[in-house]
């Protein structure tokens, strides 16, 4: 996990007219791990991913993927050979059948694994003779995933890969991600499925309004984020709790709720010093962390 970052950006920015979709993004994604890219709709996730892949030109800033500069056409081509990508809108040729699509894609990639493609075609129960335009949304997603999973890339980038999948499909997708990771593939994926992210991700990045608000390991988040509920005999002394790590303080009468990013121990100690009647510490799930982080912004 100490390898050089597979994705590295510096001040990456994209404006569409007056609107800034991505603002001065400094992103670093480590090798050999699963990184989840979280953000609300319109936060700039897809634009970021498209810039990384050289599909959208940055307004300013720079970046590298697998050490190749994203704005250099030649380096970009080299990089794309080692990166598999599942796009948000799952673009496929609608006039081709499933079988034709798979055969067509296989001819592009030297890292194509025929056996894996065949196995997934069965597991996904994709009708090989059906035209892409006649596929359901879930089937389209599965076909797009198949095209990525059949390869053996260094880096796998997925934009909302679970879209249109039912719970069984999502479970299968997560298993495939884990299997790819076990093969040494670095994975970077955007998702709204926080419950799933919480299981498989090693690392979390949160993007909001084009800014990176959080970039941390999930273990670190689990261990440091706490909600602390305090009760005092008199009015809650909320001014006493402006401690490093405390993100949010809500006081109501004798009660107080704190949201600490770190340093929960210091909060508890302060509460005891101030003779709190009740001190309760509870872990904070990724959903709450996400909502709080985005709300604070």
């Amino acid at each position, binding site marked *: *996990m100490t390898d050089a970052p597979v994705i590295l950006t510096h001040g990456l920015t994209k404006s569409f007219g007056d609107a800034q979709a991505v603002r001065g993004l400094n992103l670093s994604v480590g090798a*050999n*791990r*699963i990184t989840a890219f979280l953000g609300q709709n319109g936060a700039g996730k897809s634009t970021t991913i498209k810039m990384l892949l050289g599909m959208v030109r940055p307004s300013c800033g720079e970046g590298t993927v697998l050490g190749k500069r994203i704005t250099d056409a030649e380096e970009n081509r080299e990089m794309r050979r080692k990166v598999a990508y599942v796009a948000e809108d799952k673009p496929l040729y609608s006039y081709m059948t499933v079988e034709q699509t798979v055969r067509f894609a296989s001819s592009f990639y030297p890292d194509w694994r025929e056996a894996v493609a065949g196995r997934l075609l069965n597991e996904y129960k994709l009708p090989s003779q059906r035209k892409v335009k006649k596929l359901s949304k879930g089937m389209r997603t599965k076909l797009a995933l198949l095209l990525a999973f059949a390869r053996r890339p260094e880096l796998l980038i997925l934009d909302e890969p679970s879209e249109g999948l039912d719970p069984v499909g999502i*479970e299968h997708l*997560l*298993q495939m991600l*884990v*299997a790819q*990771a*076990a093969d040494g593939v670095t994975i970077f994926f955007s998702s709204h499925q926080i*419950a799933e992210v*919480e*299981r*498989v*991700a*090693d690392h979390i990045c949160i993007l909001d309004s084009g800014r990176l608000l959080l970039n941390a390991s*999930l*273990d670190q988040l*689990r*261990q440091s*984020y*706490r909600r602390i*509920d305090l009760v005092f005999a008199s009015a809650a002394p909320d001014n006493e709790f402006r401690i490093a790590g405390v993100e949010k303080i809500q006081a109501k009468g004798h009660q107080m709720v704190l949201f600490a990013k770190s340093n*929960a*121990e210091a909060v*508890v*100690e302060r509460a*005891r010093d101030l003779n709190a009647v009740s*001190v*309760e*510490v*509870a*872990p*904070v*799930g*990724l959903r709450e962390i996400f909502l709080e982080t985005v709300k604070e912004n």
Partner: protein
Amino acid sequence: MFFKLNPTTSQPLYLQLMQQVRHAAETGALQDGDQLPGIRTLAEELVVSPNTVAKAYSELEHDGLLELRQGSGAFVCVRRRTRSLADHVHVARRKLRDLIEQLRDDGLSNEEIQRAFEAELLYPAEIVGRR
């Protein structure tokens, strides 16, 4: 053995895995020489990042509870120390059970007891400082 991970608690998944292996060794559910699934197999089974399993295994190896053999998997080594530790844990559990029963008699709910434990474990570090 069967593992059960809870992604929504405050404990990192690798720690949960470690504790479950340790607990299984202490209770005898895992015996000396038993083999655990490989990193890839267990990661796919639990649908967690392979790094989670790798980290748990390497920490357990560091603690002397697992032996990792290249290519052939992870083997449990239960030494005398583990057993005496098991006795300690057993005694501690009995004490805890008594205490919890007493707190319930005093009218506290399970949730209140759990949160009180969380708060006490955080304070103060100098007394707990052993681990």
